[in-house]
């Protein structure tokens, strides 16, 4: 890794603009004396720019990287031991961010509902998960295993007996109403949703 790239990354970390790769690059090089010196110089320059008083000997970089190393190390070990879990962990982070974002949107919407649509305050319940539901999924995303997961059976005697039949039963049930022109489009949509796997 070039010295220049490292310093760029360090600069990005300082400006709070580092991506994950840059942060890792800086952390892995945090034992590097020259990098620490650069860090200190940056801190002083920054303090001057912001007219802040700073004790240059206070090695923030060491403290921060030590704290982060404590957390980062076990993750790395686990990732080495179980490859797939590394990905899962990343999804988990991404998902929690998504949830936070959605929660923000939802709060915002609720505010709006409260102020403008008093008449139908409770008219927008969130889609809930009923008992024994399948895994929650994002829109338009499906996996081959969903049917089995959703139609979870405790069948040990003849495994797969229900798996072979339940999808067809569900389908047959849903399609009865599709054939009836007196119905709305709802039964058709219900039946179609069973095919989206």
């Amino acid at each position, binding site marked *: 890794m070039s010295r220049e790239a490292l310093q760029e990354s360090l600069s990005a970390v300082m400006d709070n603009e580092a991506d994950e790769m840059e942060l890792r690059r800086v952390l892995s090089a945090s034992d590097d004396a020259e990098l620490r010196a650069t860090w200190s110089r940056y801190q002083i320059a920054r303090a001057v720019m912001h007219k802040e008083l700073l004790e240059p000997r206070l090695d923030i970089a060491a403290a921060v990287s030590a704290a982060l190393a404590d957390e980062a190390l076990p993750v790395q070990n686990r990732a080495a031991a179980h490859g797939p879990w590394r990905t899962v962990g990343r999804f988990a982070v991404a998902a929690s961010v998504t949830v936070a974002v959605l929660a923000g949107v939802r709060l915002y919407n609720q505010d709006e509902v409260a102020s403008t649509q008093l008449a139908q305050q409770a008219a927008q*319940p969130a889609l809930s*998960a*009923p008992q024994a539901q399948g895994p929650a999924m994002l829109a338009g995303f499906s996996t081959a295993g969903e049917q089995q997961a959703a139609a979870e*059976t405790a069948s040990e*005697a*003849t495994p797969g007996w229900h798996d072979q*039949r339940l999808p067809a039963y569900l389908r047959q*049930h849903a399609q009865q109403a*599709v054939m009836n022109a007196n119905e*709305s489009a709802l039964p058709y949509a219900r039946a179609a949703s069973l095919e989206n796997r």
Partner: protein
Amino acid sequence: MRFIPVISLLLGSWLALPAVAAEAQDWLQRLAEAGRSRSFQGVFVYERNGSFSTHSIWHRVDEAGVVRERLLQLDGPAQEVVRVDDRAECVSGSLADQIGDPQAWSAHGLSVQRLLESYDLRMIGNSRVAGRSAVVLALSPRDQHRYGVELHLDQESALLLKSLLLNDKGQLLERFQFTRLDLGALPTEQELQPGAGCQPVTASKAAKVAEAWRSEWLPPGFTLSRVAERRSPASNEQVASLVYFDGLARFSVFVEPLRGVMVEDARSQLGPTAAVSRRLATADGDVMVTVVGEIPLGTAERIALSIRGIEMQAVQ
């Protein structure tokens, strides 16, 4: 002084109740007739736990009163149905395999009087769906054996713009909702033409099936609307099926012989649809009874426990 407005409010709402109830019934009646009298086209979404999809609909009523409708899924596989009056003309591949005889279905249209036996109907306000003004009707179940429904009807045409299925805790199980509805635009002949994947439905010669099974207990209001028999999806066994309907909700019962195979009971829930399988011992050997429907899991369980053979007495 402070309670006078309250009293007048209470009195007012009490006096207005019969009128409101009549108005709600009137809206429901208009909904039942809307599809037979209005041409429209639009786009709607369907959402349940684990599934979200978007669909297009073209609905044309010509001068002679013939209703022609095409439904097409817009995302994922192109699921499609074309219906002319009361029968399906063509259905896309995966939807087709379970239909059987399209003529055999007794029409169960929306019967307002029948609905009111099992549901409490109220008008709960106004809303806006797909950019259109709507009135909101609530159908609350009179017992714990069915789910509640919230219907948003178009103010102008009484067409169903939005429908929510809610359980007893008020949790949403399913959403059907238009995102766009054009009442003025008459669907063209081309728009009503089925795509290449839509396979013509031909009436099969379905033999009259004798009723071999019945339920000793049914949730009030549900009546038998169809009996059928079809080959099992996984073997050569004949599977009997019974369909029950309460004017809004529907459930099916499937009875498949086990022929000595050891299978355990099972229960699952897919969005609004519960499925319960229970083994039943008969003189003819064990069978698996499976109840599938948009009813609470507990109700499905109780029905599954109540199925008995008509000719052969259950051994239990």
